[in-house]
């Protein structure tokens, strides 16, 4: 098990050598590798009742915190910093959190990865947008930000894909935003 991962890391390292720095390597991966959730458009989010704008009582989802020290903002809003490349229903509104799946769903292993800046420490983090699969549409908190989205011929940069792949079911439920590590600091290291 470890041996093939080691080999893989070796290969990855060779690729890194071609990039000018760790940071640009990760940034490249962020926009290119492994596509995130399953889609919707900005107008979709607007049609969903202005979600993404003001949080709170009017939209029927109470403000939350991430529960992580130094991680500001509301994970039920599209504006939350980890959501810089988010696309789908926010698992924080569906019985999960920004980093965990709701009960009864399964996290997809293939993801789209973004690089988002945390306004609290002004550092860039690698965020992995893993879909939660196995139940139909959660429906709540549809969020879409297309900054690094590319058409399906750049498959792992495309968020129009149902990324419930490699799971026991392809039913799409919601999407997480998991911190994989820090980007800027590694580039500087």
């Amino acid at each position: 098990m470890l041996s093939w991962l080691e080999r893989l890391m070796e290969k990855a390292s060779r690729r890194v050598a071609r990039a000018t720095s760790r940071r640009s390597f990760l940034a490249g991966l962020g926009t290119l590798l492994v596509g995130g959730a399953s889609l919707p458009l900005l107008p979709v989010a607007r049609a969903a009742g202005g979600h993404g704008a003001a949080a709170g009582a009017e939209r029927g989802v109470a403000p939350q915190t991430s529960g992580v020290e130094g991680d500001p903002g509301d994970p039920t809003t599209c504006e939350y910093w980890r959501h810089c490349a988010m696309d789908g229903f926010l698992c924080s509104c569906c019985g999960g959190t920004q980093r965990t799946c709701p009960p009864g769903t399964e996290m997809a292993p293939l993801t789209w990865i973004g690089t988002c800046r945390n306004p609290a420490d002004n550092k860039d983090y690698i965020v992995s947008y893993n879909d939660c699969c196995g139940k139909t549409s959660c429906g709540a908190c549809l969020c879409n930000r297309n900054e690094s989205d590319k058409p399906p011929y750049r498959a792992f940069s495309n968020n129009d894909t149902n990324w419930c792949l490699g799971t026991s079911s392809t039913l799409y439920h919601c999407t997480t935003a998991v911190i994989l590590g820090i980007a800027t600091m590694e580039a500087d290291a």
Partner: protein
Amino acid sequence: MDFCINLVKQDRAVRTLAGAALLLLAAAVPASADLPVEPIGVTEKLPARWPDTWIQAHDINFYALSDGKVVIFDVAAENRNYKGSISAAQFASFIASTTRPEIYVAETYYSQRVRGTRHDVITVHDKSTLAPVAEIPLPGGKRGQYVTFKNTLQLLNDENWLAVYNFSPAATVSIVDVAARRIIGEASVAGCAMIYPTGTRNFMSLCSEGVMLVTALAETGAVAKQWRTPAFFNADDDPLFAMPTMIGRMAYFPTFHGNIQPLDLSGDEPKVLLRWSLLNDADRKANWRPGGWQIAAAHRSGRLYVLMHPDGYNGSHKNGGPEVWVFDVGSGKRVARHVLKNRGVSIEVTSGAQPYLVVTNDSFQLDVYDAGDGKWLRMFGDHAVTMPMVLHAVQ
């Protein structure tokens, strides 16, 4: 960027592994002042026993009937109050066990989604994982399909049996052994409808001619005896709503014209108690009536909550209403009138010591109020539910 193009050319395995490798790289070098690296693949779990501030909202999703669900909310929590969901489609019925960590959905699906072979089943879900753990077949293609009534799926015999209402249009009730996961009996309730558990193993059904039919079951689940009571209501003049609210084994049935018919279902023979009115003369003049879908709720403290509307007429009994009236079931006296923030369609009251009044409003969001003073506390919306017709408080 040359690198990017090369990467995209890789085959599936390499791409997948590249992702895994990135994960390891990132995880290997966390700086102490940074946000912690988080694990991939974590799924939430719920406790095996659910708090008494939770409700189970049955979203029939009428606009997409094959995609209904039950959503579990903690109505007392300021946030993180959406706890999870389970599938419950095609006019499903729902009930939760209080003695086992299980919830039950009686539902219908087709082998090819919208066509093919019909399957009626009870799907058993685990309360902790919200995952299906068993499927009990209901053969015969006769499961009764309704907008959703609590009394189409009930628990009997200390929750060891499930009773399922069938309508094909022959009206029968199937008895299911919960532990054995199979049907053990079936009773015809022709001319009557629904399942109202009474005593230990018995249930009664309401009948067209204003009587009730009592079905006594043997220990095997077979019908031991059936009998009809004398008439105690008139379905032409003042029908009983089909869904009562319960305090212990006392059932309170509102009527179309604003009466409450209490039935004592604690014994094997139901007792018809004295009917009383929700209305005073002024109320009657303004033609206040109960109306909506799930129009009554109750709390063990003896409080009865009824969704009311003024200017009632023949046909207004599903229109919902702007107020919830609170009564003391001992005295029959009204003790409060809660004017709703948004007109209500269905109501439920949580079972804890500090109860919450939960209202499906006419935009099909859920409004949460303090059941005591009627103060609006919060709303669940943003497409979390689309048509939550029936609300089940965790007992």
